[in-house]
């Protein structure tokens, strides 16, 4: 040590580049669920949490099992899934169609964008009575509500995605003399696909939210109707069972889109 001169002192350079890089820890998400539900169970079992505040998670599970065993789960799920599928398919298809048209034609863009901006913030739930008058109290008004709710976000996502297609690819298509149709079908649509799919993620979540609203009027069966009925009967176990079903539905739809993305967008780096 003493031999070393002052200028030669060797020091480890401190590492300071850590953090700010999201690292996936899968099990933590699950652990949060387990801990929260466990706490709720202990709280309600011990009486610390009154049955008026929160139902026992085990009772919710029991309600769910009963629902499944009685076959009522499918009685409620089938119409809800149909409404979701028909409504969201209608809304998304129309939304993608209009979005692409807005992306391609300046006149349509000039005409439609302000209209879409005006429609977007309308709470679709507020229009439910109007929809009942237009489309009747049966399935049509429910399809319409869900379709309308998924339409606007899909339009916005789609024309944004079309705008973001790499212009050099379009120039390339033109320089090779590709027809307009080919450019749209082979360059613009696939190029817009990532944006359209991430838009669909949001649209489908909105569709699930609107499912409950759609089933407010005149639905005897359906997960939304089940939740509303449980709410009006102040039956918290059923209410939570219904909410859990909706959550699971959301997770399921999101993972389906994830799978579609992985397949359709496997070209992405």
């Amino acid at each position, binding site marked *: 040590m003493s031999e070393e001169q002052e200028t030669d002192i060797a020091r480890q350079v401190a590492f300071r580049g850590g953090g700010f890089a999201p690292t996936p820890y899968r099990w933590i998400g699950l652990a949060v669920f387990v801990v929260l539900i466990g706490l709720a169970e202990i709280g309600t079992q011990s009486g610390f949490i*009154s*049955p*008026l505040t929160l139902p026992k998670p085990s009772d919710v599970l029991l309600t769910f099992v009963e629902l499944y065993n009685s076959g009522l789960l499918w009685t409620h799920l089938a119409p809800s899934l149909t409404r979701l599928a028909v409504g969201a398919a209608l809304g998304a298809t129309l939304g993608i169609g209009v979005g692409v048209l807005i992306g391609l034609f300046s006149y349509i863009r000039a005409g439609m964008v302000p209209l879409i901006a005006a429609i977007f913030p309308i709470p679709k739930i507020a229009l439910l*009575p109007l929809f*009942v*008058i237009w489309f*009747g*109290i049966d399935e049509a008004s429910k399809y319409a509500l869900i379709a309308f709710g998924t339409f606007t976000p899909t339009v916005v996502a789609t024309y944004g995605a079309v705008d973001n297609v790499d212009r050099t690819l379009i120039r390339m298509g033109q320089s090779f003399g590709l027809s307009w149709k080919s450019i749209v079908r082979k360059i613009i649509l696939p190029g817009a696909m990532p944006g359209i799919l991430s838009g669909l993620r949001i649209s489908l979540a909105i569709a699930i939210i609107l499912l409950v609203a759609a089933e*407010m*009027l*005149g*639905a*005897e069966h359906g997960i939304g*109707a089940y939740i*509303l*009925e449980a*709410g*009006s*009967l*102040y*039956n918290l176990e059923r209410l939570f069972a219904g909410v859990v079903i909706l959550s699971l539905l959301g997770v399921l739809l999101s993972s389906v889109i994830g799978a579609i993305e992985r397949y359709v967008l496997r070209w992405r780096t």
Partner: protein
Amino acid sequence: MTMNRREAITLIGGAAAAAGLATPALSQNRKITVGALRFTSHSGSFIAFERGHFADAGLDVELKFFQAAQPMAIAIASGSIDYAVTAVSGGLISLAQKGAVKVIGGALSEEPGIDGQKILASDAAFKAGLTSPKKLDGKIFGMSTAGSSFHYMGSKVAAAEGAAMKFKPLQKVGAIIGALKSGQIDAWSIVPHIAKPLAKSGAAHIIGNVSDYLPNYQITTVFTSANNAAEQKAMTGDFLTGFSKGVADYNAAMIARSAGQDGVDEMVRLIHKYVYADRPLEKAAPSIINGTMRLNEGAALNVASIEDQLKWFQSEALVDADVTMDRLVDTSYVKTIRA
């Protein structure tokens, strides 16, 4: 009377104290909150409040208004308000089962001979032959939610006529009226002051009376938190005393018409402060008068009717089968009727 309410209360309270009159034992000027909907059926509370009956009973009442019965029941359960009047529903029974609320008295009743709730048919259904409740088989009946009083009434009428009906939940009265007008539902039952104008406009037709099927139907009840009912007996008794005086005033003026037309007019003016306040008095008056139904004297409770309702909700699996009458009702406060 030119005094405002607060002055009136201090004056009355002060006078009572000074004179050493028979003031209620425990609850001197005790502050309580009473929940209400803006319906004529809640007139008992309005009158007791306006005419100082609550103050006489030693209570400083604040009225709190709600848009629907459901949040009001939850407000009682959570202790945000102390007393309220509401229809028996699946939700109310569930809250009672959880030990949150208790029915302590009766309010609005069907009574043979007095105009009560009406059974309505939509214009389209009426023209297609739905002219009497006997023809309800296969029809669609409107209701707010499953387990509501509409659901109960419709089911009872259908059972009596051997009709199988479909029930459509539409959440709000406004939505039900819309669906009835556009013929999306075939039939509905509702209080007279809503039924009559609908029939008059031609959008719907009155095809029967609820009282023909449920002669002494206890439609609304006075309820409070289970804690108030069990622990605050003096305060609860005082509330019912004040409320009953309001009810007595209402029945005397509107049903017995003991003070003639002037009495009716004065009562309508009082109620108009709370009900249909957005319309001018002359327009609101017919609706208020149309809505006249008997409120139980002394807040007496028809336990036979309540029991029938409880049994029906249980038979439909809308509430748990193990809810007992004791869990739902505290009969220690008012006279009970068994008919």
